[in-house]
């Protein structure tokens, strides 16, 4: 039947399946990353709060890229009373 299939267009359902699979792998990873950020944020607040009092708004956790290197950036704003 190979000769027969040679003249057929690829079946569109198969294209749909393959497109969905690769798209959803990507989207699930993105959403997973967003969850990672919120988990990290909460845990950092908990750890730092044991030593200094800080406002939850003073913490920013982000993921990003510099060129091709994925980065996690965490900024913690310390109260004025803490000296580095």
């Amino acid at each position, binding site marked *: 039947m190979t000769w027969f299939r040679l003249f057929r267009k690829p*079946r569109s*359902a*198969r294209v749909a*399946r393959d497109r*969905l*699979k690769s*798209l959803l792998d990507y*989207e699930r990873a993105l959403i997973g990353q967003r969850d990672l950020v919120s988990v990290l944020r909460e845990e950092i607040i908990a750890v730092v709060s044991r030593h200094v009092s800080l406002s939850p708004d003073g913490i920013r956790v982000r993921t990003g890229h510099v060129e091709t290197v994925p980065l996690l950036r965490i900024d913690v704003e310390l109260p004025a009373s803490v000296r580095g």
Partner: protein
Amino acid sequence: MSQVIVVTSGKGGVGKTTTTAAIGASLAKIGKSVVVVDFDVGLRNLDLVLGAERRVVFDLINVVQGQANLSQALVKDKRLDTLWLLPASQTRDKDALTEGGVAKIIDELRESFDYVLCDSPAGIERGAVLAMRHADQAIIVTNPEVSSVRDSDRIIGMLDARTIRAEQGGRIDKHLLISRYDPARVTRGEMLTTEDVADILSIPLLGIVPESEDVLRASNIGMPVTMITPIGPAGIAYETAARRLTGEDVRVAVPEERTGLFDRLFGELGFGRRAAA
């Protein structure tokens, strides 16, 4: 024990309201007490599909805001004694629905009904989250089509993160209901198979509802598709799904194309492979 089940999909127009009405009626037919709750504030339609639109007096928002109590707002089905509707508001702002108000209503409904079916609005906004918030189980209605599958995947992620059960470290039972399935197009390779959809979304299959003229005909006359006589293929698929929900061990039937002798011969020769569950 009472079960709260959200009927959801992300995408609009895939058959959430049809499914809520059909499964609600099926459960009532086998003797369960059922309330179907319309969460689509501003765009209510469950009343229309159930043929109860002229008997709506109070709605969900009236109950949340204390202008009516629950028993005043519940509308009893004229044909099935154990089927009730809690309508959405058609005129109020959807922000009138509060988290605390919804929690209180669901708690009260749990006391009186075996099944509380929550018909979710489309989208992933507040209304959809409130509809799923208290669910023990979810029916994800999906058409075998790329945008519907993608949106279902998104909703599944939300069910695992935004429901009370998930927040408390538990899980909610998720069931895939594929609707508008066209066996002829699947055979021709023009439509995703049910295995493809179930495999991509990786949740168990509750039922496969074939594309059917009955769905429109039933909604035209204000009947759930499981209530029309004689019951058609879509109605039978919903009845089977409802029985599976109750824990009965019934096989999911894959709708088959009505074939002629010619197709059957070619089928035998391996040309038109048919999908199996």
